[in-house]
């Protein structure tokens, strides 16, 4: 079973509010990923890190979304100004490798934007 920890499990925000979620990867996993899963089971890759450095990110992440993985602290994903369309399950995953190996997922943070 995965040992990726995500907090909080549930997050409710009003439109325009900030939403911040955190992730602690499995020990020994230097690569961290964030995905968004919507209610139609469509997954969208947002960003990934190796140690503290961004490896890849999509355009959406560059605008209202920000993320970081500081040394000796949980990784975080923050939405600066939440929109209704951001309501989704945000999944953090970690991996031993940055070359396509298996990713282990946390339980997710379910964001509801009212």
């Amino acid at each position: 079973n995965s040992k990726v920890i995500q907090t909080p499990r549930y997050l409710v925000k009003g439109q325009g509010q900030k939403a911040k979620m955190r992730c602690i990867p499995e020990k020994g996993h230097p690569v961290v990923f964030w995905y968004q899963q919507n209610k139609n089971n469509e997954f969208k890759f947002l960003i990934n890190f190796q140690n503290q450095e961004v490896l890849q990110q999509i355009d959406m992440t560059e605008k209202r979304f920000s993320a970081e993985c500081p040394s000796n602290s949980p990784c975080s994903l923050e939405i600066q100004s939440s929109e209704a369309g951001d309501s989704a399950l945000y999944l953090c995953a970690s991996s031993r490798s940055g070359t396509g190996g298996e990713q282990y997922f946390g339980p997710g943070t379910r964001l509801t934007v009212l």
Partner: protein
Amino acid sequence: AQSVTQPDARVTVSEGASLQLRCKYSYSGTPYLFWYVQYQRQGLQLLLKYYSGDPVVQGVNGFEAEFSKSDSSFHLRKASVHWSDSAVYFCAASIYNVLYFGSGTKLTVEP
């Protein structure tokens, strides 16, 4: 463009029956392939993976999958399902280190 397709949105089987969930991918090369299971909208649990070699790979809880390069497929199988297997199953392909998921197959196991 790369994509993963799971043609069956819902599958219902009786407990003890065999199971096959279908998955096809579209990519010019051979990606790493995975099956994940999601219970009650929780996180994803890895069932099995294929990187190379023997096209039949074994996973947890009696699941196995068979890779076919000619068919661009990676179907999941189980010889005898249990009621606890009821969940949503996702096929995924890792391309340039990013997972591309199918839309999922909701499996219901009837008593």
